[in-house]
């Protein structure tokens, strides 16, 4: 911690300087959105550098805020440019039709095995890949529902921590499973960014 934290701060500072310099030089608006999102990752890195359990808990709201701001700005960009979704798929890549099922299955299964925050990210990578490749006409509503239930379970686990502390292990399992679903649902929103009828 003593050496790692200042060193990490230095790296982040260099990253922030590079990111902001790139933003000043970049003139194309679409590229500026992408650069801003990269810069926002640095805020998460700053939180992650603290490297305590509390910091880990703070990353999730930071991530959510980042994604929602990115979506809001992207919507503004789409409205401003008057962009419309293409009628046909923009490109055909063979692996995007054959791979998603099995890859997503492996990643989601491994994520469930890991559980908790890390598991959520791994499982989300599978879901993101699946949605990017296969589209998401009906699944989106399901994900919203699952995310809502996961949130309720997560809050329930906190109530167990507060009022029935002797059952802490059960609450840890509940919270771990729920945060897995929650992170996965949040991150799979990224996979829907190609647009679609339900988004």
């Amino acid at each position, binding site marked *: 911690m003593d050496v790692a934290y200042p060193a990490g701060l230095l790296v982040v500072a260099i990253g922030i300087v590079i990111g902001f310099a790139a933003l000043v030089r970049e003139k194309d*608006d679409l590229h500026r959105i992408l650069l801003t999102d990269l810069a*926002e990752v640095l805020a998460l890195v*700053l939180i992650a550098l603290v490297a305590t359990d509390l910091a880990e808990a703070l990353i999730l709201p930071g991530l959510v805020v980042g994604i*929602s701001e990115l979506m809001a700005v992207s919507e503004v960009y789409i409205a401003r440019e008057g962009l419309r979704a293409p009628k046909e798929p923009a490109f055909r890549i063979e692996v995007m039709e054959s791979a998603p099922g099995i890859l997503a299955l492996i990643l989601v299964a491994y994520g469930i095995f890991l559980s908790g925050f890390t598991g959520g990210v791994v499982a989300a990578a599978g879901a993101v890949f699946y949605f990017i490749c296969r589209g998401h006409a009906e699944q989106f509503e399901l994900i919203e529902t699952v995310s809502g239930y996961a949130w309720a379970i997560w809050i329930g686990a906190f109530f167990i921590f507060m009022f029935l502390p002797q059952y802490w292990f059960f609450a840890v399992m509940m919270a771990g499973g729920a945060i897995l679903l929650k992170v996965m649902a949040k991150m799979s929103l990224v996979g829907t960014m190609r647009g679609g009828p339900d988004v």
Partner: protein
Amino acid sequence: MFNLPTTNIGGQELFVLEFGDIVNYFSPYTAVLFVFALLFTALAIVSRPERQVDIAFGGDAYYAKEVDPNLLRFQRFMAIACGLATLGAMVSGDVFNFTLFASMVGITNIGIVAAYRNRHVLNAAFQYGIVAMLATVPLFGGAAIVLASTGTLSMWELFTDGVAVPLIAKAFLVLGVMGEGMAPFYVAKAEITRAQGAPFILMVHVSSLLLFLRVIEIVISM
């Protein structure tokens, strides 16, 4: 049980609401800001700006403006959400919660400004959105540095004399709030204050003003 360590800035605490170690509070200062935000949230809820009329200068004529109710509904929702986020930022007793509420104000401000479909306004909203997104870096960065250097995020601990918060963290917090509360300066450039739903634009100004006042209180107390 809870006594504000510094009473010469915000005054004595009036009311304390405890959620575990996250302790929200009112001091006379934040209570005034809270009431102000509550007033304007109530105004956003009750105002019905659908019938907007422009008087032609120097004559009896007036123009009734065409207003799209759907956009207005969205704008009203965003204004109310912005008011609620401002209320949260006023009472928060936790630095990270404050930064979250501040960035929520930023997001809802994008929504309020972007609800008006005009190329200039959308352009301003886009530029503001980029600034608001970038501002989360110093905002969360400041909170993270506070946590790393003092080991706590609770203002009840941070306001005591024994805890020294580094200057860079305070500067980051102020910088972040400046970015999130930037909207009024872009609005001044856009045509939006004369556009439909102008009463909801008020919320942008109110939230940004209150955020500035609150962050100054926090930074001075730390």
